[in-house]
């Protein structure tokens, strides 16, 4: 049941604020979609090339969903938004796959430090969820000026490919263009390789390097062309006539992977009773004002039906069972921000129950952290918070996290923040995440500084303090915003709240490709 007053001023103001943030999000996504800009897009098209997202659209099943991951990677850095690669989860021949497509219009599709992190994150998702990985390769290699950030960790790209293969998770490389030097190991280590005639170039060293190394005058096509690899070296399994043909062959390869989902099949799907549009008017712009997460839950779960666990105990955290796109889930959602001992114990017990039932967990974050103060320390808040963190950290069921509002302090950990490896983590535009609120952080610095000055017997510079506080507050505020954090790969993307159900449904389906591990060997502790 919803108590949301959709005709009230609060609702309208919250909705307006959210829509403004969504307009900004659309603009940032559009920057990523624009790739290297009109000039390079035109140049790529003139060569007969499809854009990265066009390749993906043709690869995935018609009318299926595609969830782009980390679309804001590189936001706020010296590199373009999107990090010159598109990654995501798409359905190919009925099989959910992780797709990684270089964007050749952005600096030739070269890998920068953010490209690398985005690519590694995609491979992690493939491995954790047992999703076949399809690489749509056309990359000029590493961005050499930043090689120090790429070279050493970048080896993991190739290790991941072969580890996926070893785990029985198929890897497919469709080579549309350059895949040279280190990039040559992408087809080299993939289970299935398709190269496009006259376009794919795969070699360890290009003609100039060969000339330098051995004096040989090598011609590109003979050195690493698709024909050569298909007929001579055997590096290519399939020779494609053109890009469309490569995508067609890629689909055929996936059709014949004989992929089987290990997880349970979802049950019938029922739409929520309330309009998802109303999700825009729930989160207050000022995160100090709490909101009822049940208003969110009824708008994202099947039939709006939510079976609450311990509704009368530890009421600042809502826990309960529901179905989402036919998948059973356990939901933990902050109700009034603060986590007390009761909430922590309730969470730990609930997580154990979900593990016994092998039910995936969804964390809806709006937390300002664990309660501080003498009474709470005496009451064992550290002990109880640790229980919750322990339970989250060692829970083996899939976790999905959505940061709706605040995500401060250890609450971020207890509510399965990024460091706790949820299978997927998405952020609403209304979210903020930091060790503490900007004002609190600035205030703490001020108090500490004042104390230090006093200890040294100096007068405290009040004017300097005010300036420092303002600066710190502004910096922390900026660094706690979703675009900034998403740009650093601290989430898998910023989503429109109205898409929450779809995103979670898609992730739960993806998660179902991997078996759910056995729970730890204890009975559920009543906390």
């Amino acid at each position, binding site marked *: 049941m919803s108590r949301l007053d959709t005709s009230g001023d609060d609702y309208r103001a919250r909705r307006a604020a959210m829509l403004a943030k969504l307009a900004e999000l659309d603009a940032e*996504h559009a920057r*990523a*979609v624009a790739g290297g800009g009109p000039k390079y897009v035109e140049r790529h098209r003139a060569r007969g090339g499809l*854009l990265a*997202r*066009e390749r993906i*659209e*043709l690869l995935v*099943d*018609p*009318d*299926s*969903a*595609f*969830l*782009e991951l980390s*679309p804001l990677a590189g936001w706020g850095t010296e590199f373009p938004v999107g990090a010159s690669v598109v990654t995501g989860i798409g*359905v190919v021949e*009925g*099989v*959910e796959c992780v797709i990684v497509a270089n964007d050749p219009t952005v600096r030739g599709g070269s890998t920068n430090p953010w490209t690398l992190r985005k690519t590694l994150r995609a491979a992690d998702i493939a491995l954790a969820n047992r999703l076949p990985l399809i690489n749509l390769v056309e990359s000029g290699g590493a961005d050499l000026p930043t090689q120090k950030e790429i070279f050493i960790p970048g080896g993991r790209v190739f290790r991941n490919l072969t580890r996926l293969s070893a785990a029985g998770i198929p890897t497919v490389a469709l080579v549309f263009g350059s895949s040279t030097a280190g990039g040559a190991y992408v087809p080299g280590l993939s289970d299935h390789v398709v190269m496009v005639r006259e376009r794919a170039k795969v070699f360890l060293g290009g003609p100039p390097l060969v000339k330098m190394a051995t004096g040989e005058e090598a011609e590109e096509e003979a050195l690493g062309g698709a024909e050569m690899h298909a007929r001579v070296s055997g590096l290519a399994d399939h020779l494609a*006539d*053109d890009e*469309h*043909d490569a*995508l*067609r062959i890629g*689909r055929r390869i996936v059709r014949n992977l004989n992929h089987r*989902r290990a997880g349970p099949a*979802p049950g019938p*799907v029922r739409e929520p009773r309330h309009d998802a*549009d109303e999700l825009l008017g729930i989160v207050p712009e000022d995160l100090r004002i709490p909101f009822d997460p049940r208003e969110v839950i009824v708008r994202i779960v099947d039939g709006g039906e939510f079976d609450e666990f311990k509704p009368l105990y530890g009421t600042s955290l809502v826990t309960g069972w529901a179905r989402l*796109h*036919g998948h059973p889930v356990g939901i933990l959602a902050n109700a009034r921000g603060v986590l007390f001992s009761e909430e922590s114990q309730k969470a730990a017990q609930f997580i154990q129950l979900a593990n016994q039932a092998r039910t995936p967990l969804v964390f809806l974050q709006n937390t300002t952290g664990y309660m501080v103060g003498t009474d709470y320390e005496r009451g064992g808040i550290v002990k109880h918070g640790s229980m919750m963190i322990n339970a989250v950290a060692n829970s083996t069921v899939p976790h999905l996290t959505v940061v709706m509002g605040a995500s401060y302090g250890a609450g971020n950990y207890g509510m399965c923040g990024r460091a706790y490896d949820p299978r997927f983590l998405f952020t609403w535009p209304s979210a903020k995440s930091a060790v503490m609120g900007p004002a609190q952080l600035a205030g703490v610095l001020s108090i500490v500084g004042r104390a230090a000055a006093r200890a040294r017997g100096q007068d405290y510079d009040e004017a300097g303090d005010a300036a420092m506080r303002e600066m710190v507050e502004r910096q922390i505020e900026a660094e706690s915003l979703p675009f900034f954090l998403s740009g650093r790969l601290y989430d898998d*993307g910023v*989503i*429109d709240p*109205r*898409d929450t159900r*779809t*995103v979670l*449904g*898609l992730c739960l*389906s993806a998660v179902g490709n991997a078996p759910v591990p056995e729970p730890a060997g204890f009975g559920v502790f009543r906390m």
Partner: protein
Amino acid sequence: MPLTPPVIGRLLVANRGEIARRVLRTCRDLGIETVAVFSDADAGAPHAAEADHAVRLPGAEPAVTYLSAAKVVEAALRTGADAVHPGYGFLSENAAFARAVLDAGLTWIGPPPEAVAAMGSKIRAKALMAAAGVPVLPGFTAGPDRSADDLERDVRALIERGPASAGRRALLVKASAGGGGRGMRIVEPGGDLAAAIESARREAEAAFGDGTVFVEPLLERARHVEVQIMADRHGTVWALGERECSIQRRHQKVIEEAPSPAISPAARVRLCHAAVTAARAVGYVGAGTVEFLVADDTVAFLEMNTRLQVEHPVTECVHGVDLVELQIRVAEGARLPEAPPRATGHAVEARLYAEDPGRDWLPQAGVLHLLDVPGVDVRFAPPPPGASRCLRLDSGVGNGCEIGVHYDPMLAKVVSYAPDRAEAVRRLAAALAGARIHGLVTNRDLLVRVLRHEAFRAGNTHTGFLTEHDLTAAPAAPAESAESAVPLSALAAALAQAAANRAAAPVQAGLPAGWRNVVSQPRRTDFAEARVSYLLTRDGLRAEGLPDTSLVSAAPDLVVLETSGVRHRFAVARYDGVTHVDSPLGPVRLTPLPRLPEPAGRTAPGSLLAPMPGTVLRVEVKPAGLVTAGQTVLVLEAMKMEHRIAAPAAGTVSAVNVAPGDRVEAGAVLAVIEESGG
């Protein structure tokens, strides 16, 4: 009709398609057991399945199956049939067959073989009629022994003998043994008569085994009017009024009606009298038709068809009789009442053909996925007694039937009966317009255009109607809706396809179709006829080129769109390689294009492709030979018609891939012409 003891217990229908089913229906009503014959091509045909017994006639070509008198008689004897109904076409006007049936001791549902023979030769029939006082046109015979000089002389004689204007008149070359427009050629004044005779002879020889043709003046702007005859063995001859069959294409009837909108009661009496005279002149028994050409004051005997006609249902409607029942009863020796039942109301029949009027009536072969005519009241039967309105459907094909190259491409006859002509025509047009016909190109749109044409509605019909009013490509619907019919239907097809794709998705079943968290491009669905590009945003549908269109609902088989405030339902059906969309905007056939086509071996430029499956008749060029634009390269025979394949431009023949006698599939590369100076 006075009762006579039934003598027929088991009847073989020596035919196929709708007429076989039509005869089977009456037999079932009369309690007569039925035997069907079927060729290999018709092994799955409804007529074979409906009969109590069915006998396979090995092969597919008519000559070795439905035209094989010996095999049909053998089938009748083998199954213990005691009667044979020939239907129309095939052996129905073959006197030798009639005799063979009688000689085998079976009842022949048809006129005496002598009457069949007398009328079988159009030349003889004309002479016989002239002698009996029935008006005929002058003409001359061009038998196989006639030289070009003789022809020339005869033509001159004809001109002198005929009306003053005959010299400037077009001439008509007709096969003496023919029917259905085969072996028929028009020669305009100054045209090449010899070539027309030669070509008509060849076609007649192939179709009827008799190359005799005759020439007569072409009566232009004439109406084709025919009188239905029913005669018993006891001297009663009925004339069941007239039918008008003026709407023809290539001398084949397309729309028929009873009564004719142009025949006065007095003229009707004269025509019926002439028809009865004609029937009596040959001692006719059973159902037959006497055909006339009527132009202004001229009435001329055309021919007598000694069988049931395709268009007999319109007579059944207005007279309330079952002609097949009467045929059987008469064959059993029953007496007809003295006078036929009175005619009431008006009936119009349209023949639905699998043919492309826009491409020279090219017959279409392929799978008929669906034929669904809305509001059908009866099938193969006259209107129920007392009914003043009735929609009748006679169809020999079932959904999923393969329409082959061997037989007539008629899919169905749709007949509308109503108290008056205007209402009958309106209902027929609506039934055809609303019919769902999937899988093949048909003449449906053309039929609707004719039925809704001002001149037709006014009753201004003549055999040149379709030449005078070129309706092969005119829009059937108001211009503005016709314009958007294809893009809107294509959009509906794309949305329906998306709904179907979602419904069939093995994973993520509940997710919205084509959902993207980062939207980079519109969703595309390409058909050969239209490209659909759209996005489903939170604010609704945004379809490229259709700014005022919103989506109401989309299911795999039904999409509701709203355009400029008006809602329309689009029924969408998908088959292998073709999608059909039916809506009030008109039927639209779409060919889905694969998103990722296999790189196919491209056809060399200048390739001449077979327009349809058929047999190569002649190759008129040699490899490396020079051809001029429009020159005949080869002739393909299909559906018993000769199709000329001409050079698209002047050039050199770089390849000839076929030889006479080769059977080719549609799209086969027949020859390649390298354009000169290209």
